[in-house]
């Protein structure tokens, strides 16, 4: 039951993170078709500055959009670590899985590299709202999903 609940949270976190990446990708593409580069950056900066929930609680308690992305990633990471080893996290879990070789080890390595790239993309959005980063994050999130499907199988 505990493992099921953990896997469920991992899946939900992944689904919402893909939604988050899709949102950035759609906004970058749709704004790029409607306004010039300067206006596009202006609108994307406005969007990045928004906070959730938009009302009901004090400003300091609201989470910025990028913060939501980090929260989803944290949820995915923590539940992922527990899925790998219900007893708790040890660095050997990662190194053993990578060093294990075989198709499982290779797929896991690819997944970890993609997750690392997504984190770099997410970090880059804090400094520069480049369309390429948003598209790459979406592509990365979808590739991680595909690799995860193969890993579970």
């Amino acid at each position, binding site marked *: *039951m505990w*493992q*099921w609940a953990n*896997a*469920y949270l991992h*899946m*939900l976190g*992944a*689904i*919402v*993170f*893909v*939604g*988050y990446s*899709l*949102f950035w990708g*759609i*906004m970058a*593409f*749709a*704004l790029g078709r*409607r306004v010039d580069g300067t206006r596009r950056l202006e*609108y994307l900066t*406005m*969007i990045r500055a*928004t*906070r*959730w*929930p*938009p*009302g009901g609680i004090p400003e300091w308690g609201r989470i910025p*959009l990028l913060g*939501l992305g980090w929260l989803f990633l944290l949820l995915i990471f923590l539940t992922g670590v527990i899925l790998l080893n219900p007893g708790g996290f040890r660095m050997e879990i990662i190194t053993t899985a990578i060093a294990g070789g075989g198709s499982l080890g290779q797929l896991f390595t690819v997944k970890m590299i993609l997750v690392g790239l997504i984190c770099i993309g997410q970090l880059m959005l804090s400094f520069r709202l480049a369309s390429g980063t948003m598209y790459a994050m979406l592509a990365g*999130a*979808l590739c991680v*999903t*595909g690799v*995860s*499907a*193969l890993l*579970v*199988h």
Partner: protein
Amino acid sequence: MNMFWYEVCMVLHLLAVVLWLGHMFFWSIFCGPMVKNIPPPETGSWLREVSLSMGGLGWPALTILVVTGIVILGFHGTTVESALSGQLFAGQYGHMLAGKLALVAAMIGYQAVVGHRSAPLAVYFNMLAALIVIALSVALVRGF
């Protein structure tokens, strides 16, 4: 059917789920309220409109889910006879599968009747159905 096509269907099935439900959850819970409240109100409304301009993931995703779902069930040995006789829905696994398929049918009904029209209450029932479908799917793959 060889393993390659089974794996292709698994990947497509999961990609359709995360894109469709990710869009649904993120837009309904986070992005919609956030973008709508960007000042001034005209800018917020326009940005919300822009964010919704590339929606329409429901039907394509559902089509992929149904087709790949049937192929995956077939790979596990499910036949039309076992489904019609009720043998497929026997036992704990069968009950969970029946629950999942019933909820998916309800979500297809929602998509056909409501679609992208405004239905504040119905949308939450649809999201609840989606949450239960995911829960059942995880249980079907990993067990409880």
